[in-house]
């Protein structure tokens, strides 16, 4: 049902264009209903003061029932923030992108949540299993089974015994 996602996304886009985004969040590009880019910046005093990061949202035809695929852009000179829940390939381990996603959330709500995730960070460090994860990570972060204590587990290949 492509119409539900189109209908909902056009509503969100209209709202962003008319009412603007919260402070620190800017819409970069939303030319279609499949991929949107935003920049986020953490305002005020924080470890990430003055830093700007680019977020990519990818929607499928059952948005908002299904969650969007969200990650930081790491190509073309962009970098991902150093944070215990952000992998160096841009994948994010956040519960609202996984089992706590709800259709009442929106793209802007996700941006705000990620903004506050950065703002509340106490120490700039990569996740403990960063190297192992990025070596074998899937392209789409939704395919990863994250545990929400901040560690990522790669999907278990089917030939292993469960």
């Amino acid at each position: 049902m492509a119409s539900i996602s189109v209908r909902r996304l056009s509503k969100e886009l209209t709202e962003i264009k008319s009412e603007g985004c919260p402070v620190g969040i800017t819409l970069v590009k939303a030319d279609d209903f499949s991929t949107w880019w935003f920049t986020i910046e953490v305002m005020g005093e924080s470890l990430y003061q003055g830093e700007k990061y680019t977020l990519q949202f990818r929607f499928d035809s059952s948005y908002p029932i299904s969650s969007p695929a969200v990650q930081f852009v790491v190509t073309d000179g962009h970098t991902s923030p150093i944070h215990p829940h952000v992998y160096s390939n841009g994948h994010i381990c956040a519960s609202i992108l996984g089992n706590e996603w709800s259709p009442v959330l929106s793209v802007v709500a996700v941006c705000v949540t990620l903004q506050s995730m950065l703002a509340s960070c106490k120490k700039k460090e990569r996740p403990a299993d960063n190297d192992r994860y990025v070596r074998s990570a899937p392209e789409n972060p939704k395919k990863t089974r994250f545990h929400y204590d901040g560690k990522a587990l790669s999907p278990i290949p089917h030939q292993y015994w469960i």
Partner: protein
Amino acid sequence: MSSREPLWFCHECHAEMRPIMVPDPVCASCRGSFVEKMEDPADDPREFAHPGHGDLDAEGMPPGMDTFLLSLQTLVDRGIAEGRRQSPRAGSDIGTPGNRVTFQIRTGSSQRPNAGVRPGSGGAEQPLTMDEFLRRESDHAGSGGSTNTRPSMAQGVRSGSGGAEQPLTMDEFLRREPQHTGGGTTFTGPFMAQYLMALLGQRDPLNDFFGRGMGDPAMEGRMGDYVFNQEALDQIITQLMDNSNAYRPVPATEEIISNLPREVLEHDSPMLEKDCAVCKDQFKLETDDPDEQVVVTLPCKHAFHEPCILPWLKSSDTLLYHNQSTTLQQIRVLIPAHIVIVHQAHPLEVEISPHAEMTAKVTLASYNLSLEGSSAVDELTRRRHHHDTPVRTQIRLRNRRTEETDIFPVAGVKISIDIYGPSEH
């Protein structure tokens, strides 16, 4: 051997033996109590092969025992070579160089003839017990005292009092290990255990034994159902957690979906001022999609367009505005017509109308939580005779671990209320 007295079969170690009566029959080989008398040739317990334990030979040894012995032999030879430099134990003529170390296998009462014999002891041939063997190994590695040139690999033999030998349980064997690590070529407990598991799993034991160390943690799970280190245990638990419903959305059943209250929008409907949070549109009387005239209300009192909320419920039986943990499926009721469930965000009340049969069973799927003292069940059944008033009771929980009481049903708790009735009479 005459067949007057039937042999017994031990289902735990697969040995055929005559049991020890203590006074109940117990396996002579492993002291297990799961023994069976083999009296009916038509019903032979030996036929009852477990997968993976296929071809045990006549004495019930797992396949590959020969290679096992060979590798042990190699190890011990190396140990002996060092040991030769030590002075022999006083009072015995054991330590002659050039002694070939051989093995003798014992399974309970049966003995494999001549797999190895203790040379040079000039008298009765008795195999070294495992205990002595391991002790000597550590002795020689540590203080350089005695040697052992005649170890014999008993199949887990414990030196009991007065020389009676009883088989070691795996647990004791592994536990014993730490006292005996003396370096050298001591056969470590976990190592041995891993080797045995490989044998039982019918993999190439030598490859496992020498080919990999403690193994790739992801592979540990393949070795039967056992783990021997913390890492492997963590891995298994992680895999189980991954597959548990705690992290996965569960779809709502047809029954639940069809039981949700629905309202068709009318001119005076109070809904008209509100929004459907899924499509972010207001509830309107004029819509392209006629199904959007129907508004469904979830137990949390939030309302949505029917076509907006149904796909969500089909994929994940949860409430939208609340932390994903409150599931509609918490309440599985058999006789909806007789029950009214009042469900706010937390307290769970059950109301049963009069004339319903009160056989209620409330079950909880939770480790730490239990139903409070006078639980819903007791309340309901106690009022069984007052048929003219509806019965209402709150379900309260108690945390067994922290001893906190009067808790409302919370995150992740699945409560099933099965209420039966009415009865025929």
